[in-house]
């Protein structure tokens, strides 16, 4: 571009070269990025497997549990019968062997852990060790899919409301720094130190037990309404308390965080200039505050979307909400590694894909960002 002698076709060649160079650069970047992300997923999932099994210690715990349960069963089956201790011992040994085989304990943990990893990476979820889906299936995919709608509903509605409410209010507050509302939000932000289930219990006591306005828990009344509209209404009624708990528990700290973030941008000179030019508040917010903060907002939003997948473990348990969070909670209690790994691998892949896509979105929404430029 700086040559003094330029042929007529040079720009086209240059452009082709540039395009070709950019493609190579982007491809290389994508390749490296994908490999790194995949490696991260592998490490993350394998760590989950190790942690879920306490490095193999869970095998011992499960063996103990099997032995205790089988011995009790054998004791009950043979109580007050002229059955010799040898026969009883043989029965117990056979039953223990069957159960250990069923749970895969006859294979060393190291081998099993890599088997879990391999299957997980290929999205072969297999069968749960102990858990069954509500419909009675031991297929991990069924267990997860069965609970997915409930979690998407609860987490989706609460987290989206929380996100947009926070951003909207924070944006306004950042323009009204020091106002009474700003002070109220700052004052209330420590309330978010309490977890959602804490609010949940209070809400249950107030709105279900005392006022009898809303249900104690569950996702639907028993029996559920047969009419679809009534069903949706009933569902929303059950959604109010758990969703409110999740929203209230994070609302003020979320507003406070966003408000502080927006405050940095809203006190920039160009914002003052825009104001001096007489632009409306709406235009200032949209063009001069939201625009430069868009990558951060999109990142948060994207992570929120995949976070919806994981559910809210304790809040779902408190409200008996049949979601992924409660399933994960039960799976941890049962040491059901396939289920734990199943929920983790999906989250891991979603996270990796999101991170990967975000790089491109940054480049689209922010002209300063170039993919693979190393800057």
């Amino acid at each position, binding site marked *: 571009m700086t040559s003094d002698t330029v042929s007529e076709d040079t720009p086209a060649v240059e452009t082709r070269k540039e395009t070709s160079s950019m493609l190579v650069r982007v491809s290389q970047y994508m390749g490296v990025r994908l490999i790194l992300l995949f490696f991260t997923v592998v490490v993350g999932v394998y760590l989950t497997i190790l942690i879920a099994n306490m490095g193999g210690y869970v095998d011992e715990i499960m063996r103990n549990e099997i032995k205790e349960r089988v*011995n009790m069963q054998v004791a009950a089956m043979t*109580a007050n019968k002229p059955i010799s201790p040898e026969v009883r011992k043989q029965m117990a040994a056979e039953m223990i062997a069957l159960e250990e085989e069923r749970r895969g304990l006859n294979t060393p943990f190291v081998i099993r852990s890599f088997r879990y990893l391999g299957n997980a990476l290929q999205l072969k979820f297999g*069968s749960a060790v102990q858990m*069954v889906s509500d419909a*009675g299936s031991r297929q991990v995919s069924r267990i997860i899919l069965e609970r997915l709608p409930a979690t998407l509903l609860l987490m989706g509605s609460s987290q989206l409301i929380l996100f947009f409410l926070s951003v909207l209010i924070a944006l306004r507050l950042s323009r009204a720094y020091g106002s009474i509302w700003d002070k109220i939000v700052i004052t209330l932000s420590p309330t978010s130190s309490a977890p959602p289930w804490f609010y949940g219990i209070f809400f249950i006591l107030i709105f279900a037990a005392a006022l009898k306005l809303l249900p*104690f828990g*569950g996702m639907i009344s028993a029996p559920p309404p047969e009419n679809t509209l009534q069903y949706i209404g009933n569902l929303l009624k059950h959604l109010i308390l758990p969703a409110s708990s999740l929203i209230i528990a994070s609302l003020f700290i979320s507003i406070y965080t966003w408000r502080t973030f927006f405050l940095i941008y809203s006190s920039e000179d160009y914002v003052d200039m825009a104001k001096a030019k007489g632009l409306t508040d709406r235009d200032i917010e949209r063009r001069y505050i939201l625009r430069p903060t868009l990558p951060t907002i999109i990142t948060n939003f994207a992570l929120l979307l995949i976070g919806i997948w994981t559910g809210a473990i304790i809040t779902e348990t408190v409200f008996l909400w049949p979601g992924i969070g409660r399933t994960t909670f039960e799976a941890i209690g049962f040491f059901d590694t396939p289920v734990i790994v199943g929920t983790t691998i999906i989250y891991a892949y979603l996270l990796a894909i999101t991170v990967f896509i975000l790089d491109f979105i940054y480049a689209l929404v922010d002209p300063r960002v170039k993919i693979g430029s190393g800057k």
Partner: protein
Amino acid sequence: MRKLYAILGVIMVAALVLSACTTPTAAPTAAPEVPVATEAPVPEPEPTEAAASCVALAAAAPTTDRKGGWLDEIVVSVVTSDSAVTQIEAGAIDIYANGLSSKDLPAIQEAGLSYSTASGLYYDMQYNPTVFTDENLLNPFSNRKIREATNWLFDRDYINQEVYAGGALPKFFAITTQFPDYADLADVARKLESYYAYDLEKAREVISAEMVGMGAELVDGKWNYKGAPVTLINLIRNDSDGTRIPIGDYVSTQFEEIGFVVDRQYKTSREAGAIWMSGDPYAGQWHMYTAAWSATVLDRDQSNIFQEMYLDSSAQGIPVFLANVSDPEFKTLGDRLAQADFKTVEERHDMMARALELSLQDSFQVFLIDGKNFIPYRTDMIATSDLAAGIEGAMIWPYTVRFEGSEGGTVRWATQNLYGEPWNPIAGSNWAYDQGVIRATSSGDVMYDPYTGLVWPLRIACADVEVQEGLPVGKTLDWVNLKFSPEIAIPDDVWADWDATTQKFLTIAEMKGQVEAAQSQAAAIEAAQPEVEAKAAELIEAFDTATLTVETLDALTLEYIAFASEKYGVEWDVTGFLASETPGEVEWIDANLAVDDVEGRKGELEWWFGYVVDNTDPTAELLGLASRDYTSALRKTTVYYPTDLFESVTWHDGSNLSIADVVMGMIMTFDRAKTDSAIYDPQSVPGYLPFMEQFKGMKIISTDPLIVEYYSDAYSLDAELNIPTLFPTYTFAEGSWSMIAVSNLAEAAGEIAYSADKALAKEVEQTSWIGGPTIEVLAKYVDQALADGFIPYEATMAQFLTKEEAVARYQALKDFYAKQGHFWIGTGPYYVDQVFLTEKSLVLKQYAAYPDFADRWANFGEPKLAEVEIDGPGQVKIGEEAVFDVYVSYEGVPYEADEIKVVKFLLYDAKNQIVKVAIVEATEDGLYKIVLDAETTKALEAGANKLEVAVVPITVSQPTFESVQFVTAP
């Protein structure tokens, strides 16, 4: 921003629609049609007349014309136990059937709710009785006298009041305080409870003496051994219901009080289990553990409890039990009791009484509390609670739960969870909450008495029980006839086993032939055994242990097994076993035995051969068969069914119960455990083997009315409990032959499996009749069976079932499924109307075609606990006669004398020692006179004495105790 809001809106709507889409289509709520007779005449075997010597109970006149359950509807849902009381108070639910622990009792009482009680956990201190390997560590509990003395160390009443709000019962013995054995041994138990009552100083005195004897010394109030304080490690469970923390703390404090240092280690079940259960007890990692056990069935015979809870022969089989060296008398007695080695009820009573005494002397475990569960419900509800199993676990609940003074209505039944595992009657869900609901849909041969553990005829008319002379069997109720015979011969045409290949029953005559063949082969095996053992020794000797690898060990083992297989003349496959076990064994040897430790390694190889043989031996079944004796049985039960059984009892799909249902149940007893069966399931084998050790045969004497003879070597002490299950009630629920046939077809085709084990192994779904992915598979096979007019196990079943009849049954199934959307079909007083799997709820509706009136079991509304009052002189002159009147009543009405098993009194002197125990006879209904003659009062010293009365009713196994004090003066 608008776009973002639009996205939010779309996601919200999508989520709502997605959730709504999961709604199962609720089936219409109409009740199944009243049964229509669809059966063609059944070709039957020639009926043989058998006169019943037993007498069917006369039915009381009904007080209602309602049939089936009292309620119109029961809506089952899931709520957390934490909110149960609040939810009943708020009117959201009517009953929390799963029960709450003692810590919730104050909340239940405060809320003013009604509640029933059931057995909860029972708590004790489990001691480590070993002498530790480390000689510098003293384990006081290796001394039986110290363990015994700790009974005086703990104030059980204090624990009950402080930890359980007085809602539990102090416990000294392994037997359960409210079960029949305790009632039978009430006087013995009371005497021992008095002797071992809380006495801190006595505990200190005995323990101090023993500690000194063991070489310990008291330094500055602390016990020291070899210069270091004696520190007791107390493993205190911090999970479960939370009450083991205060118990563990209290026990620790008491030990600290008498000079021990206590290391309180708070652990979860899993953490503690790794130490006390699977750890090496000799390693000194623990001294005591806050154990708890459960008794959820009203067990009328706890003979095995001493072996179970104290002896090294316990089925617990864990290291600490194996390490307990008991007094030889106790060991022998406990083992004999466990194997029912007694001739008469009286002999057993004496053995149990002695075992109670010896168990406290052993005190391997020191029992503290019999816990209770509390089931709260609305005050206007009536619910029958089993003394052990509560409401949900009681077979009778569907027949008695109702609103007071009214019929019909809807009960909102809440429980802990639902659909814990797939529902099928063969190997389906056994979760208490699932079984609670299933009970409402089932009936059966007999009804379990919730207060005594005996049974009443539900679908049978009566039964004759014949046992061999000398067996300690007695009877309480009139519907069963008990007789003793010198020998009970088994006729040759009785069905004794099942041939899965020919699909026919094997008769006694055929089995005798098989036994003879097995005996000759067993003899050959025995003869070859020394040669096989010599071969093993030779192989081990020749093996170079330094070259031990998975491959070399496998090769060595295979050579040995091949030799044994040839010599024994049996097929013996160990490849699967070796594939899973050898790597672990080699790893263990490498880690624990040095390469140059040739002897150690060879010793391990010897163990390894034994281990392989124990786990894969194909001769076990053969030897078991060879040891069977089909000439006679210890018991024969003849069960008589009412003449209208097959007309009056209908399945929820409208079909009549038929003889085919009964025969299918008989076949299924055997078929799944047979390797030649199309539905063979290894999971069924462990339970099948002990059954076959005692089962001798059965014979259908007549099909109309149904009369069946049943021969077995197993017997219970109560004649009423010697009734076989012949009604099509499987392990986990009822099953019509048609549903079993359809499920078997699907399992044989490899599409589903009854048991979780087999489902996992075959990578198919576990059979569920209530919903889920297997429903469509079942529906497909219903269609197939319908199209084919399929008769299952045709070689046998065709004698009891025609093709037309089969088609009619499949059609009924198909229609039921089309209407209700599931296959859960029983004969109980309620049927499953709607099922919501993910929502975890279910609707039961009254089954109007149920044959019995709703009030049939109304007399089981409440346990008839005896109320006792004692009236007598407050002052008695020594050497003079004194008379006390004992009034026994129930709700103010005198208790009938023939409903009282025994009334005993215990006389305590001024030192709280029992000086006399005697039985009191009734002078009239509800009145008993205790006469303390001059001789008796002469033996008393001056002071305050106590007269305690124990009343044991027949109608409820819970004794009532009442006492009165009187002063003796010269």
